[in-house]
């Protein structure tokens, strides 16, 4: 870890001022990802601006009946928040599928969005990686890529975004509120993370001098028919090979509305409007689910060690939609898949 200056932000405006003044500074809140990366010399900030004491820790109902979640609400507090558990159980489930109890107690909501990929090469400064050292090349494309992306990849990068929480937030049509030197702005969740294209060093569309202040959830939480299904190489405390956030609004046996997002398959939580559209108006069943999975994975491209993910994702989508339709969401502690 390199030496750095440590300062605390007194308020959001001060945080923005401080980061604007020092382009190589980083905000720190939970620290669970940034400190890890600093110990690996992947991140070498000149300054850490501690935002953990800013008053962004509340969960409040919005005027329209949604929820506004402060960027510093710890992941576990969010998962167990009564309003989240009641109205947005898919979000709660996704959070509880990730990391460990200790890490969830530390990690912040905003930090979860900004966590970086788990690509082996990104973490190992002895190897080329376009995300870490732009222009050095992607070692994963022809290397070890079991954990890597099958959708939205580029020749520069096939990394995945490792978050579980973000998959649910994408499915729920959340909005990210950010503050910066100019006016505060809101970013649709699906526009927050980027695809790698030719600039994989940029994970998100957040500007360097902006700070995430809150996540807003619209009123619809799909609390009746949802699931978060995570498939991984061991039964807990592992990153997803594939995960699925699935939510349905049913009328009788017909799908009135559907949300579907995949984790572990792309540089961002993967949503596909076509797949969701194909579900709407259809009877909730194998035929419609299969069509949605086909649409979602039609453009998927596998590499030497991860081609299985295409089939796995397809199967997981079918299963998740079946769980959602049946109202039998996956439990994160009972490892039998429902």
């Amino acid at each position, binding site marked *: 870890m*390199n030496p750095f200056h440590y300062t605390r932000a007194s308020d959001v405006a001060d945080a923005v001022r401080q980061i604007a003044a020092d382009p190589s500074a980083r905000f720190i809140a939970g620290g669970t990802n940034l400190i890890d990366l600093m110990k690996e010399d992947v991140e070498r900030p000149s300054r850490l601006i501690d935002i953990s004491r800013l008053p962004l820790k509340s969960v409040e109902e919005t005027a329209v009946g949604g929820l506004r979640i402060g960027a510093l609400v710890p992941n576990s507090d969010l998962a167990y928040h009564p309003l989240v558990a009641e109205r947005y159980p898919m979000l709660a489930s996704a959070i509880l599928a990730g990391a460990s109890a200790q890490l969830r107690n530390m990690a912040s909501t905003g930090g979860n969005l900004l966590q970086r990929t788990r690509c082996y090469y990104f973490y190992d400064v002895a190897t080329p990686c376009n995300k870490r050292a732009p222009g050095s090349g992607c070692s994963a494309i022809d290397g070890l890529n079991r954990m890597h992306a099958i959708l939205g990849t580029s020749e520069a990068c096939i990394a995945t975004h490792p978050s579980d929480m973000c998959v649910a937030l994408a499915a729920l049509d959340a909005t990210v509120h950010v503050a910066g030197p100019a006016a505060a702005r809101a970013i649709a969740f699906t526009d927050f993370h980027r695809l790698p294209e030719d600039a994989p060093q940029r994970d998100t569309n957040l500007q360097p001098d902006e700070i995430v202040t809150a996540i807003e959830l619209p009123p619809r939480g799909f609390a009746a028919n949802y699931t978060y299904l995570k498939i991984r190489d061991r039964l807990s405390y*592992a990153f997803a090979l594939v995960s699925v956030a699935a939510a349905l609004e049913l009328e009788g046996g017909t799908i009135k509305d559907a949300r579907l997002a995949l984790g572990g398959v792309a540089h961002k939580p993967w949503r596909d409007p076509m797949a969701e559209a194909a579900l709407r108006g259809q009877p909730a069943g194998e035929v419609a689910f299969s069509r949605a999975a086909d649409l979602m994975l039609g453009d998927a491209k596998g590499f030497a060690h991860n081609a299985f993910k295409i089939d796995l994702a397809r199967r997981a989508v079918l299963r998740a939609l079946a769980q959602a339709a049946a109202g039998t969401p996956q439990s994160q502690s009972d490892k039998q898949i429902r």
Partner: protein
Amino acid sequence: MTNYIGTATSRVDGRAKVTGAAKYAGEYNTAGLAHASVVTSTIAKGRIARIDANAALSIAGVIDVLTHQNRPRMASVDDAYTDDTAPEGSPFRPLYDDRIRFSGQPVALVLAEEPEVARFAASLVRVEYDEEAHVTDIHRQRDATFALEPGADPFGPPKPRGATEPALAAAEVRHRGEYFVPIEHHNPMEPYATTVIFEHDGKLNVYDKTQGVQNVQRYLCRVLEMAPDKVRVMSPFVGGAFGSGLRPQYQVVLATLAALALKRSVRLVLTRQQMYVLGYRPAMIQEVDLGAKSGGILDVIAHEAVTVTSQYEDFHRQETAWSGLLYDCANAKYRHKLARLDLSTPCDMRAPSAATAVYALECAMDELAVALKLDPLDLRLKCHSDRDQNADRPYSSKNLRDCYRQGAQSFGWDKRNPEPRSMRDGAELIGWGTASGVWEALQVPIAVRIVLTANGHAEVSCATSDIGTGTYTIMAQVVADMLGLPLDNVTIKLGDSTLPQSPVEGGSWIAASVSNGIVTTADAIRRELLRLAKQMPNSPLADAAPTEVALVDGRLVSVRDASRAVPLAETMRHSGVDRIGEEKSTNFEDDGSHAHNTHSAVFAEVKVDEQLGVIRVTRVISAVAAGRILNPKTARSQIIGGVVWGIGMALHEETLIDHKFGRIMNANIAEYHVPVNADVRNIEVIFVDEPDATINQLGIKGLGEIGIVGVAAAIANAIYHATGKRVRDLPISLDKLWR
């Protein structure tokens, strides 16, 4: 009368461990401690062209940067580096020269006043290399291997028996399969660490993470050319090792080298990533060829293995020999080849050779049972062997049949539908699989000192280690029984090179060795007490022979007439001694007439989600025959631990190497998966009776390894039974079920 042997007893070091009082190698804080951080190579093979440490040296708080160019003197002959457990070859010498032999090799050591400074400065050391072509892929080297000659050395393949080729050609039913186990890493929870305390007189007290303090002490003295009385090595607590601490690891050399260079105390704690070059279970390609008569008589076994070694040492164990040992079979042939790779040398890892070889054999036996249309348990019973056919001798004891019987009964094996995919629970397919396990019951020369004081307290010392196996506790139990004392009156000292001689702790040999060693020394104490007792006026034991007295409840008692007894304290007081000390060696002379082994029968239940391939190991029963069990409580834990390792081996563990870089890419415990709590459900351990009157006085065999052997095979066989899919390369990740 105390009866601790055989009684479930809580760990005597338990309190120290649950309160945080137990100190491990990297936890000795002392004034003036310098902190070290290692710089490692980024290439797999070549030479160091240039090292620029100027940037590192310019950091405030950096004391020095040691490299092969400026380090203190080290020995220049291989013998100096050849420790007690070294394989044939030329052992690795850290910071010795400019040669790079594997990626992650230490190339510089930064010494600083604070650990954070050392680590930061290490990141500033610039190393340039002249790189050479490397190879790290066993599959690429498969044909460039060299064969070990059968019967040539104790770790080579045994000589063949019978006529394998004709037997294979004549077999009514034959199964031939290739099985693969990848490189696996021990990953003990405690990182490798050494704290060297530099004493005022120049002597070094070295706290090291090791399974053998005396092995390390002798090694350090040779490598750094120090007089034996200058170096003391200690490891009172070891945070797991599983074989990785059998050989002295490089951090102990570097820390000691640095202490000598700086003439001050030094600590070096390796990072988790750096530990991945300290040794590993070698990857193994195996071909098992079985021929049988249609009724289930095994006629022939041919077992061929290719295992990984480094370019500089020939590491191997008797991998293939287990096949010809486990079952009755007239014809057997073995072949073992080594593939040299540009990696560090492999090392022993829990049940080395047996964990991997028996996995292949036991999967092959399952496949043979399918081909024979026999219940896999029936096949094993039909093939049961009462003789070690490799060495052609009977076992001193072997109660594997009871393992099969009791394990099967407890598991409910008779309810198994033999048809694959025939049992299910909702969306999950249920599979039941079984496998046998075997390990050696070894014992090695050892010395034990006991000091008995007149207040009825005994201190027992031996240089062995307790790596979590429970050695402290079983030593206390045995001495308490032998001297007739309560457990609380016993103090155990171990993990110190100045204590009586002990070999490294490994191979499951310490429990048998040290407990019988205690018997020998306790016997000498008892004889001395009897001698003193006879001198007492009107001694009730005046005419008792040494074999006729026992120590019971603090008294020396005639075994023929319990009324004839003298209190121990009185005896010593009368003789004017306040302590009796004895140190005795026990050598375990073996006439070679019997084979000594432990055995197990493992039964596993898996549930596999039919659509997604997610595998859950829901139940494992391990029935073990391992002689007399000293402590059922810690013994059960040992076996449970072995089963958990077997689950990891079957489903999770795999070291991933990028062959382009020749570099391990998942050198951490987020991406190198070991089982977590959620992966482990019901594990039942059964110890079957296995009296053994000849192996040693107490009938002890040892348990460290047997728990893992066979587990991966039982799980793989259960997965086949559940899914109808036979996966022959580990780990069985869900994607392999669809290939």
